[in-house]
Each structure stands twice: as structure tokens, then as C-alpha cells.
């Protein structure tokens, strides 16, 4: 061996010449040779103390014969811990180190052999995966091209169908609207007629002496005009109904009187038709006249004197909530329904329906194609490694079960967890991105935005990938709450090892 200060490697030995002054390797200063390894740091770069712990930045070289040579931080020298397998870092007597370099070397070589075999075997699979992946990509690309073409045709067809549809829908809409308008007019006419009939009927009914004049006396004969509910219709009340006139002829009646008495009059009609409603329905409420009064106030909008309260039976007013309107509606239902379209319109609709169906078919075909295209493109946009080697794990899922949970990784899609004993699945994350270090970005994946943790972050998973013979989830753990780490072995990360690559280090 080349004579050199403790802790200096052979390659550096030439910088340390016995008897000569030593120049710090950073050139900062020159010191006597005796100051080398004298356990005092003179050089900023620590180069004067390669064999002691004196310099904070120094490095100690151990030969480690039988194993690989190494350097340890100066702070590891003479600290009572054996860091070099040859034990040369501990010479102060704090600890006796056993030289276990041979043993380690043997283990290392065995391990290297194992790794080499693994890498080689795995690499074979990887090549297959690359083939498969590239083929897959080519196929998908071809499919995209084909689809793009047919998509253009489908678009044209769809647009044609849409134009056609619009063309026939225009007369259809016109005819339908016309029909509807006509119907509205008929309805209005009918309603006016019915109202006139009701006025006539009412007038005839009120005109007790049939002199074609309704006077105050005739009004007073009708109890429904008893506004203050004192049991009789007074002259004033009657006059009020006649809009302060003494009497009315049919024309004045229709114009002035009817609009105001119409509701009262209807009530009267109802009373006659349905006398049973006069009976009290809920006798127990009678005990509470105040309450009744309140109810009454709400319902009866007509004025009345307070003194009249006692005599007044509120329950006769129950049918002031007229149920009859719906009844009337029902009676008239036949008249209310719009008549069928005429034959001409029907024909137009038929034609439009056919055009719509054709359009819908063309449209959905186009959409299907677009979806397929999107799926393909999304695949093609995916990053399955520089040589497509990871593509074979897409659309696959891998499981791993520990003491409590079964974990599932579906690469490029999601990671989940479910309790071993059953129970619902928890989403730990959805595919995010490759997440290895810059030098080896394809060695890890990140799955993000999983279900939120109570009092914590959204769950997420980092998948650490290493070379292995097959795609396999080999371990899972949770270093921080809801931040998972999966270990995954895959041939995709195997690289061929030159047979003698480890030789140099021995």
C-alpha cells in the first residue's frame, strides 16, 4: 500500500508528501506537515485532518478491504461507533471494532448477484411489456385516425339531419300555434256567453214579479244580501247592492250590479243546492266563541256590527270557501279540452317526428364516436413510461392485505382500502402524476384527492416502484395520518446489468 496519512485514499495520497509543508486542498493556507492529523483543524476544507474528527467538514476514507471502500464524515471518527467495516475510523480505544468487511463483501456480492438475476429476468418481461405497450399505442393511434375520419362523416350526416329537422319543424310549429290560437278564441267566446246566461238567469231569479225590473224589495227578499248578517236585508243593504239605484233594468244590472253581487249570488245558489252544510260540523268548538269570532273575521269580509255577534252562527259561513269551482270545471271539462289537430297539422307533425328521430340517431352516433375518441385520446395522452412499459398495468388492479385492511391499487386510476372484515371501500386517491425524483421520475406515482380525513388532509398515496418479476403490490404503510405509501414491484423498472459492473468497486 501507498504510505499516506490516516483517512486519505490512494488517489489523494499524492497531495500529502511527508516532510513537506501541506497546502490545504482549497489552497487557503499552508501548514507544517506535523499539523496534519494532529487533531486540530487548520484548513477550512478539513483537508489537514482526514484522519481525525477535528474538522467539521472533513471526510475520512476507509479502505474496507474485501468490501467496497468508503468515506464517512469526520464526525464519525473516534466517536465510539464502528462506521467502517474495517474499523479504521475507531482507533482511540473508545471501542474495539471487529473487521467484518469480508463478511459484508460476501453478502454484498450475493446480493448483487441476486439483484442482477432479478433485473435480468425482470428486464425480459419488461421488453415484452414494451412491445405490448407500443403495439397498444399504435393500435389506439390507428383507431383514432379511423375514428376521426368517420367522425367527420357522422358530423356531416348529423348536420344534414338537423337542417332537415329544422326545415320541417317550422311549418309544424306554425300550424300548431294557429290551432291553439283558434282554440283560445273559441274558449273566450264560450266564456262570455256563459256569463251572459248567468246574468240573465240571476236577473230572472231576482225579478220576482217578472216586470223586467229588479227593485229594492226584490233584493231584500234574498237573504244572501244580508251583509251584516242580522238576519234581514235592510233597505240600505239592498240599495248598496243596487249601486245606490232604486231599481235596475237588465242592462244596468249586467254592467254595474252583477260584478259586485256575483260572488254573493253564487253563494246563495250553493246554499240552495246543499242545505246540509248549514249544520254545525264541530260542536265542541262552540265552547270558544272568541275563537270562533276570530275565524269568522278572517272569512267574512263584509262589515257587520259587533252587537250582532251573539246571534250569529259562524258555521253557516263554512261554505264561504267555495268548493264549487272545481266542480264547475269538471262539468265543463269536455268543452275545455282542445280539439284534435286537423288532418293537415297532424301530417306536418308526423313528418317532423320522423325528422327528429333521424336527427337523434345521427347525433347519438356522433356522440358515441366522440366518446370513444376521447377515451382513446385520454389513453394516448397518458404517460406510461418512456417505452410504454407501464401500459400493461393500466386497467388492472392489484391487492395487498395486512392485519386490518385490503389495499387495492388500480394503476393510472385509483387506490382504495377496505376493512378486512368487510365494510365499505375508502378511496385513498385518484391518479395524479409520476412522482419519482427528478433523476428517476418513473420510480413513484402519486394518487391524490382521496376521501377527506376527519381533522386531517385528503387521503393520498405515494406508490414507490421497484424492479420485480411481476406487477405486484408488496407492502403498504401510513407514515402520516392519511398519507399512505404503497410499495409496488414491477418488471417495468428492471434494467439490464452489465455482467461486470460491480467489479470496479471490489
Amino acid at each position, binding site marked *: 500500500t501507498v504510505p499516506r496519512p490516516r483517512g486519505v485514499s490512494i488517489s489523494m495520497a499524492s497531495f500529502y508528501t511527508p516532510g513537506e509543508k501541506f497546502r490545504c486542498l482549497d489552497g487557503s493556507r499552508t501548514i507544517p506537515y506535523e499539523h496534519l492529523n*494532529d*487533531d*486540530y483543524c*487548520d484548513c477550512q476544507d478539513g483537508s489537514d485532518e482526514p484522519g481525525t*474528527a*477535528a474538522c*467539521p467538514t472533513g471526510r475520512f476514507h476507509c479502505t474496507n478491504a474485501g468490501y467496497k471502500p468508503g468515506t464517512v*464524515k469526520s*464526525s*464519525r471518527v*473516534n*466517536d*465510539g*461507533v464502528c462506521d467502517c467495516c474495517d474499523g479504521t475510523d475507531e482507533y*482511540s480505544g*473508545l471501542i474495539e471494532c471487529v473487521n467484518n468487511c469480508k463478511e459484508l463483501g460476501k453478502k454484498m456480492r450475493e446480493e448483487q448477484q441476486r439483484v442482477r438475476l432479478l433485473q435480468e429476468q425482470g428486464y425480459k418481461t419488461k421488453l415484452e411489456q414494451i412491445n405490448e405497450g407500443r403495439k397498444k399505442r399504435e393500435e389506439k393511434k390507428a383507431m383514432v385516425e379511423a375514428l376521426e375520419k368517420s367522425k367527420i362523416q357522422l358530423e356531416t350526416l348529423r348536420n344534414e339531419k338537423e337542417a332537415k329537422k329544422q326545415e320541417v319543424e317550422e311549418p309544424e310549429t306554425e300550424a300548431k300555434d294557429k290551432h291553439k290560437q283558434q282554440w283560445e278564441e273559441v274558449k273566450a267566446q264560450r266564456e262570455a256567453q256563459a256569463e251572459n246566461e248567468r246574468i240573465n238567469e240571476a236577473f230572472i231569479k231576482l225579478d220576482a214579479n217578472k216586470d223586467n225590473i229588479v227593485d229594492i224589495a226584490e233584493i231584500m227578499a234574498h237573504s244572501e244580501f244580508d251583509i251584516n248578517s242580522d238576519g234581514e236585508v235592510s233597505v240600505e243593504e239592498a240599495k248598496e247592492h243596487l249601486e245606490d239605484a232604486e231599481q235596475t233594468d237588465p242592462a244596468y244590472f249586467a254592467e254595474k250590479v252583477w260584478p259586485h253581487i256575483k260572488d254573493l249570488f253564487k253563494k246563495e245558489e250553493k246554499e240552495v243546492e246543499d242545505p246540509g252544510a248549514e249544520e254545525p260540523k264541530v260542536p265542541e268548538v262552540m265552547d270558544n266563541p272568541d275563537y270562533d269570532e276570530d275565524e269568522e273575521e278572517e272569512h267574512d269580509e263584509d262589515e257587520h256590527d259587533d252587537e250582532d255577534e251573539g246571534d250569529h252562527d259562524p258555521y253557516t259561513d263554512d261554505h264561504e270557501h267555495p268548493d264549487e269551482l272545481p266542480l264547475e270545471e269538471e262539468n265543463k271539462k269536455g268543452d275545455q279540452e282542445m280539439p284534435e289537430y286537423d288532418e293537415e297539422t297532424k301530417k306536418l307533425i308526423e313528418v317532423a317526428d320522423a325528422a327528429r328521430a333521424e336527427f337523434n340517431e345521427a347525433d347519438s352516433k356522433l356522440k358515441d364516436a366522440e366518446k370513444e375518441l376521447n377515451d382513446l385520446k385520454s389513453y394516448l395522452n397518458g404517460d406510461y413510461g418512456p417505452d410504454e412499459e407501464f401500459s400493461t398495468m393500466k386497467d388492472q388492479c392489484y391487492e395487498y392485505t395486512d*392485519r386490518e385492511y385490503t389495499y387495492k391499487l388500480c394503476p393510472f386510476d385509483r387506490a382504495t382500502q377496505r376493512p378486512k372484515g368487510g365494510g365499505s371501500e375508502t378511496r385513498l386517491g385518484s391518479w395524479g402524476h409520476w412522482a419519482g425524483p427528478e433523476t428517476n421520475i418513473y420510480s413513484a406515482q402519486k394518487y391524490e384527492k382521496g376521501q377527506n*380525513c376527519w*381533522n*386531517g*388532509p385528503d387521503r393520498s398515496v405515494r406508490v414507490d416502484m421497484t424492479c420485480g418479476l411481476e406487477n405486484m403490490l408488496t407492502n403498504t*404503510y*401510513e*407514515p*402520516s*395520518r392519511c*398519507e399512505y405509501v404503497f410499495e409496488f414491484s414491477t418488471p417495468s423498472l428492471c434494467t439490464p446489468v452489465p455482467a461486470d459492473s460491480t467489479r470496479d468497486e471490489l
Partner: protein
Amino acid sequence: VSRDNFKRCDQSGFCKRHRAVDPGHSPYISLFDTLDIQPSQISVELLNTKNNVRLRLELFGLQHQTTRIKINEVNPLKPRYEIPVGDVLNAEPQQDTLTVVEKNDDHITLSLEKSIIVLNREPFRIDFINDDEPTVSINAQGLLKFEHLRKKKEDSQEKKEENEEEKASCAEEEVQEEDEPDMWEETFKSFHDSKPNGPTSVGLDVSFPGFEHVYGIPEHAESMALKSTKSSDPYRLFNLDVFEYELYNPMALYGAVPVMLAHNEKRTVGIFWHNAAETWVDIASNVADKTFFSKMADLVKGSTELPQTDTHWFSESGIIDLFIMLGPEPSDVFSQYGQLTGTTPIPPLFGIAYHQCRWNYNDEDDIRNVDAKFDEYDLPMDLLWLDIEHTDGKRYFTWDGSKFSHPDEMVKNLTVKGRKLVTIVDPHLKKDDSYSVYSEAKSQNHLVKNKDGSEYEGWCWPGSSGWPDFLNPEVRKWWASKFAYSSYAGSSKDLHVWNDMNEPSVFNGPEVTFQKDVLHYGGWENRDVHNLYGFYVHKATMDGLLERTGGEERPFLLTRAFFAGSQKFGAVWTGDNMASWDHLKISNPMILSLNLVGITFSGADVGGFFHNPDAELVTRWYQAGAFQPFFRAHAHLDTKRREPHLLPNANMLAIRDALQQRYSYLPYWYTLFYWGERNGGPVMMPLWVEFPKDKSTFSMDDQFMIGKALLVKPITEQGSTGTNVYFPGNDLWYDVESFQTYNGGDTTYVRAGLTKIPVFQRGGTIIPRKMRNRRSSTLMKSDPFTLFICLNREGEATGNLFIDDYHSYNYKNGKYILKGFNFRKNVLESVTGHKDYQTDEWIEKIVISGFQVQPSIAILKGSVSGQKELEVNYDIVEDNIIIRKPGVNIAENFKLILQP
């Protein structure tokens, strides 16, 4: 915090009653005809003229300028609780002569060393006079209120008969007071407190004439200088587990030390309210009653008003037992208090190094990886910690077999590199008959009882649990035996312990703790002893850790709950803080307050326990923690991992630098703890302790001293790139990294980018440091020292250093070295204070700052190594002189002579 879970004063019967006492109308008079004067104590009865109940006052003269005042009922219906001597109090305090100076119908004047004590007859009142100035007054506000034990009035008939009976037998009739609600039972939320003994509270006011600043009574998330409680609740002392505690308020926290210090430019005094029950303290600013004092003291020198701080103390039960420590220097008060309750023993060196904790390191692999990462990134670390998840179902003293199946091997992997493991051992025991610790405790009747005598049951981490009755000495013995290696599988001398949840925390109890009527040893209620429970858990655990090595090795032990005297058993931390800048900021006053009352080995969770700190906050927190006595990073289960190597590189480097600074100063910290054990003083202390006459420092708690030589102003503001530092005294102050100097008396802006901790060495001091970066403090054992000498304006400096084996109790047998270093007139002299220990440690370098004229020759004259000339180098950047490799053993006496 969920404030509703904790009582306010108006929800506590006795707090309301004491706060309602009308000041200035004390019903108590001293009955001089009952006066009994002994050489070092006097006793006199106090009569409550409102209800004719008599109390007995005993006043003891104690050594070291200390007085004790005890007040109890003359004839209590049953004994009232007194804390046993030997646990909180080290021993029965040594008495000192009290001399009667004057005695008349109005008052008695006594003298104790340099102090005058005046006992006033009517109203009862005691005043302490030092140097002709009043310093402490007892019952000056007339707030003494002693709720004597009484029988519950069952009905009026019975009461009448009883009264008549008493009338016949007693000359003075005891006047029945009207019961107030809450006297015989009390309800808080859904919890009912049965109060079988009725009202038992005691309260007294203590005034500090001439003092504007009072300190202490931890634990509160509060500034160091205590505030007036006029518009808030009183400060509360009641050990509680408070989730996400709020800052700057008087709510009770995990520990209680009923000790208060008052300080002004002239003197420092202290009081110790020796009571273990729930206690509240009101504080108010006032002006002294000059008319009263003018009769006995010479205070009317100026015409200005004399400020005064009034305090009012009340406890739910027990007796009044008050120690008054009369100073006059801050260091005197520390040693006076240390004489009473003991001092912090020197921790093993690794205990003051860096602790890495998290709830939880999941398994042995996790521990191995964290350990390896610290080495990979060159981050020194001494202890890894395991929280509750390491156990088999929260059964303490056990291991989760699937995650920690080889604890021995795991610990061995750590100890190879000088590291240790800490496991958590909480006092709640899972109710599981197949769990031997519980079943033993149950069968041996060791558990705390309900008021009806049945076994108490509550909820904590393991679910349904029982609690050993640590008040019972037999139970403590039994608990201690659980730490025997044979009993605690996987334990060894390198496994240390952490007591958590020992307030105790009971998830389903009132205020998250025991019911007040739960029963302890001797039939005492939790009401009487509550604040002592955690103290005794801590003590019993320490007993066990001592026993396992036959008292040879110094264990490390941490507790969350504490009381006066807990300093004897190890470290305390400020509990479950939060990852926020406010919590970082308050860690300094909280630890300062603990240091002032003897709990010197204290710290806060670095990084903040709850929530996720950003990288800047973690970095700044490490920098602060590096200059606080107990230095541990900790994090909640729900937080992201935040070990330094996981942070951005710039932050990791800044943290590494902070850690390495801590490790380089370990010899200094260690020496401070030596002095702390000897003299009882704080290691981290307010500026006023060193600069007692500098009024501007009296409420300063964002910068502080570590010992006499280091001034620290940690950055606690987000985004800060510098801070204003106040440099006290007339000294020069040297930046410990750049050696830039600052003048005492100035406030100067100091730049402090992310990597900078503003730390300054005081001119006139010498600090021995170890500058080699090792993986743990244990691996630094034989490393050489560098002496950092910062000269004062006279070109002088002094320092000292304590050295032993750093881990055993042999220093108690004198197996240690105490060195003194003096630099004067260009000569450094190393002298020996004590030497009965061999060490390999030597001096590799001496750095001298503040030289006026640069020397060129250095001659070392060693008492053993002889004379040699040393190389002198001048560092032009730092303006330092560096003496190359003295090479002498640290124990050797030498002179180093510098010549031009």
C-alpha cells in the same frame, strides 16, 4: 378550547364567596391573651367577631430569611388536610430565632435576621419590614375568610336545640351563618358534586407594598408579568387537561405551582401558598396605605405614592399555610424556595440534548428509519419517543406485539449511537382483568374510590379505566416496582419514561378530570388533594426509575401535571400547544414562569402539537427550542410528518444549525443545571434576574438569559428578517456567530434571516463549548472544548464548567470536576474548584473576542504538562484571537500568558 367545559369563577361556589368578601372590614382580631411565644415561633388565636369562631395562627421563623404562617381552626369538627412533609416540602423547615422587639396592646414586633415582623391586634394583620420599608402585608385588605367545618342544618328544630346546647356550654356563642347555595352541593353542567363536608374553603390577601410586578403561579398561557384580574376571572390553579388552550387568559392548565414572586428595583420577595386544593388568585394594582406604614416604616421619603400589588388567594379546602421568602436578591428567593421544596437535579446530559417525538412512530421499522434519517442528514438527536400507540391496547408497560415485537433489539440499535428510547406510561389503567397491572391494583385495593367506597371508573385512552391512588405511599411503592426490568419487559437502563394525562385527565369527568368527591388514601377527597395527584404519579415513577438501577443511573422523566416540588423528579412541558406563531411566542413566558418557581427543566412542544406548521414556523420553533431548557419536537397523530429532513433543504439546514448550536452549548447548559441543583436558581431566566435594577426589563419576556452569559431573543414573528434587541447593563454583548459587538443600554435592530438565532454572549464571560458535531451527546463525551472568551470593557472575563460522567449519581459522592476560568490582564487562568474525577476531555482551542491590542505570543504554563508556546492566529473577519491547540486536559490547572 371549548371554554364551556371549564368552570368560571361564577360557576364555583367558593370562588364567588371569596370574591364577595368586602375589603377593609376584617372581622378578625388577634387575642393577645392567648399569645404563646417560643424561641422560633409564636402562636395566637384569631377571633372572627362576626361568628365567634376561633382560629389558631402560628408564625414560624425559618432559616434563610423565610417565615411560615399557618392558620387553622382551633377546634375543627374533623382534621383538615395538610400536605405531608417530605414530599412537596423536602423536610420540616429549619427554624430560626424570632426575637420580640416590642409588645403592647396594639401590636407585637418581632425580628427575624434582617427582617421586622409586626403582628397587629385589631384587625388582625401582619406586616414584614425590610430595611425600613414594608415588603409584604398579610390581611391588609381584610380578606381573610376561613370557612370552618360545620354540621349541615337538617331542619330548623334541630338547629335550635343545637344552638341552645352550645349556648349553655360556650361563653361565646357561635353565630350560625346563613347557608348559601353551593355550600353543601354544587352542580356544573351534568356533574353533581356532593360536598359531604360542606363549605371548607380558606382565603387570605397578601399585599406587596412598593411592588408593581408579580410573577409565577404557573401554569397559565400568560405573559410572564402577571396582570390585574380586576376585569377577568382570577388566575386559577387546578390541574386540568385543556384541549387547544387559549392564550393570554387566567384559565387553569396542566400544572399548578402556587408560588409568586414580587420584584422591584430594590428587592425580590416570594410567597408559597402551600395548599393542594383548587386555588384561585386575584391580582390588583393599588397604592400603599402610607398612614398605616408611617407608624413603623421609614417609607415616606418621597412625596410620590407608593405603588402596591394586592393579591388574594383562596383554596377550596385545607388550611392556610403560607411561606414568605424575603429575598432580598432574586437569587436569595430562588435559594429560599429551593430550601423548602428542593431543586432540579442535574439531568443526564442526554436529557438536555434534542428529543424527537411524535404521536406516533408506528413500528420498529419506522423508528429505524427516523433514526437513520437523522444520521443521513447529520442532525444530532439523543432520544426517540413512543407515544400511546406502542402499547398493547393502551395497556402501559406492554408492547403492541405486531408492531414492536423486538423492543430490546430496537433499543440496542439506538444505544449503539448513544441514543435512548422514551416510552409513555400514563396513570389510567385499562379495566381488563387479564391486564396484570390493573388486576393487581384492583386486588390490592390500590385504586381511587367513589364517594360510596366503590371502585372509581372513568374513560381515557384505553376506554373504561381505573386510577391508582398515588396519594397512598404503598401504592407508589407498588407502582415503582412496575419499572423493574423484570416487570417491564423490553425496558432497560436506556429506556426512559414520560407520564402524560396525570392531572388526571378523565374524558367523561367534570372539567375532564376526577369528581371532587372521589376518595383517596386516608379518606381525603380529591377536593383536598387534586393538584397533588400528578405530582405523586411523577414521584412514584421517578422512584421506580431510580430503583431499577439501584440509584446509580440518572433517569430521564417527563410529566405534564405538576405541583410545587415537581422539579425534583424531572422535566415538565407545557402540554398540548398548537402549531401557530402565537403559541411559539408564548412558549417563552410560559417557560420563564416555570423557571422562576423552580421548574427549571421545562419546555414546549417544538413545532406545536396540534395542526400543521409551515416550514418557516417549524424552523423558528427549533431555533427557540434550541435555547429553552427541555428541547423536544412533538406532533399530533393527525398531523403531517415534519422531521427536519422532510422540510425544504434551506429549512433543514437552518434546523441542523440550530441543533448543532444546542449541542455545542451542552457543557454550558449542563453547568447551569449543576448550579441550579446547588442554588435553586433558574437556567432560563428573565433579564431582571441578572439586571434587577433595570426597570425596563421587568415585564420583558420575549428575550431572556440562559445563565449569566447568554442573551437570547428568538424570532417568533412570521416573515421576520430581524428584530429589536434590548442589550441590558453596561456590558458589551457579542453576537455568538459573527462576534459583532453591541453596547449595553441600547436597543438595536439585529438582522435575523431564516438561519439566524439572535444569541449574544455577555462581555466578561467565558463559555466552554464542544464544537465537534456528533450524532448524539453521548458520543461527545471525550470531545475537546473550545473556550469562548468575550472580554468586557476592562479586558476581563470569567466562567466555569462542571464535568462528570454525564449519566450517573456519582457526582453526589464528589466524583466531578468544577473548573473556574479567569481572564485578567492578558492572562487566562484555569483553576480547580473541585476535582475528584478523571476525564479525557481537553482544550483544543481558545477564542478571545474584544482584545484591544493583538498579542503575538501565547505561553501556556500547565501544572502537569509544563510550559509551551502556542500559535496565535488572528481572525480578521470576526476580529478574534485564536489560540491554537492548548492541548491540556480540561482538569489541569494552567496559566495562558498573552504577550504583544
